[in-house]
């Protein structure tokens, strides 16, 4: 039961960290929670579909379908998270300009909500489908429902708990900093996803250049330890990054930072939005 709990904890942790940061960054958008729920439901349904199609996905593209699929999911999520960062930045400017036209601002606030639902669903897809497969495996191999339920719940509660801690930690932060901090966290999240996608593409042999690991820091911090997997999700930590991963990571971070600066509101603008 405990080993099941540990595995589920790991998968749930990755999901809940991503969602925690996205939620903290988009706090204050009217009607957001409803879309987050849509995203969660879509993620669960999508995970089941992906789990059912695991065999077919694997066989596709000369046996490299799984890597390709996961890489595409990551790249799409990174793109949408990047877009959310920019939108939030620009939005805080617009909000100050229309400070008195509250109705307008709320209507404006509806725009990125679909995107947030999709980001939440995508974040769940990879790890969620693994949870479904593993649960199915335990059932086929004659595990009892009680074991499954206890292990699953324990892992899930622990994983969601850590994600919630990140969320409330960010929300509690001084309003002066919260928007710039969550903006940069989203940028790191997106850069890490690009790096992971390139890692998968490299493993599948789709990256013809710079596909060897540059260094190995697994002796210092394993990606599979608790701290390692938190840093992997939040900051794109990789113990054995390939050259292409490093290029992708730095490029994503640079582009997003530049765009944030171009569209950026200042600290005062962010504060005004939070107070509303």
């Amino acid at each position: 039961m405990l080993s099941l709990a540990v595995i589920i904890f790991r998968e749930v942790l990755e999901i809940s960290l991503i969602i925690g940061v996205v939620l903290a960054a988009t706090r204050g958008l009217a009607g957001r929670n409803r879309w987050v729920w849509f995203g969660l439901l879509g993620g669960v349904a999508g995970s089941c579909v992906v789990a059912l199609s695991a065999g077919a996905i694997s066989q596709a593209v000369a046996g490299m379908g799984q890597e390709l699929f996961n890489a595409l999911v990551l790249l799409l999520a990174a793109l949408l998270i990047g877009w959310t960062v920019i939108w939030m930045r620009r939005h805080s400017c617009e909000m100050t300009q229309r400070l008195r036209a509250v109705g307008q601002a709320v209507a404006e606030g509806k725009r990125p909500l679909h995107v947030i639902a999709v980001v939440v669903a995508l974040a769940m897809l990879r790890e969620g489908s693994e949870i479904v497969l593993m649960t199915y495996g335990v059932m086929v191999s004659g595990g009892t429902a009680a074991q499954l339920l206890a292990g699953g719940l324990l892992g899930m509660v622990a994983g969601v708990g850590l994600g919630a801690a990140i969320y409330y930690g960010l929300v509690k932060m001084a309003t002066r900093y919260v928007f710039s901090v969550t903006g940069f966290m989203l940028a790191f999240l997106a850069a890490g996803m690009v790096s992971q996608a390139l890692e998968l593409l490299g493993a599948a042999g789709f990256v013809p250049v710079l596909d060897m690991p540059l260094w190995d820091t697994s002796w210092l911090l394993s990606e599979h330890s608790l701290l390692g997997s938190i840093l992997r999700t939040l900051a794109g930590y990789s113990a054995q990054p390939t050259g292409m991963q490093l290029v992708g990571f730095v490029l994503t971070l640079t582009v997003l930072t530049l765009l944030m600066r171009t569209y950026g509101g200042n600290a005062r603008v962010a504060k005004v939005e939070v107070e509303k």
Partner: protein
Amino acid sequence: VAVLVAAVACDLARASAAGADQRILEKSEEDKRAGDEAGQAVEDARPVLKKEYVIEIKDHKFHPAKLIVPAGKKIKLRIVNLDKSPEEFESYDLNREKVVAGGGKITVYVGPLKPGTYSYFGEFNPDTAQGVIIAK
């Protein structure tokens, strides 16, 4: 924060303990291998590269659990799952992670590897599904 720090500290301690276990395991594996080889005729130091290497999963175990491949070459692994339940081929040493559906098969490319022992496991059944790839 205190809880998080405590959790991290605890995790680090566990990781280093696991590392120690791993080293002991590798050591005994090496001893065993030395024994095996002494019993047989002297093996070639450099195994010949095959087109692909098949590893089967049956009753949540890998067969062969010990695979010897040439170092410095790109290796194609075919992992065939004969069980009804899905499995995930995962290796921290090789930096690979891939789901194998029940009754399905996957291809995994690894290497070129430096000489050494690389362990892998089935993430869904880590108690029984353990194996190593030895590059020579």
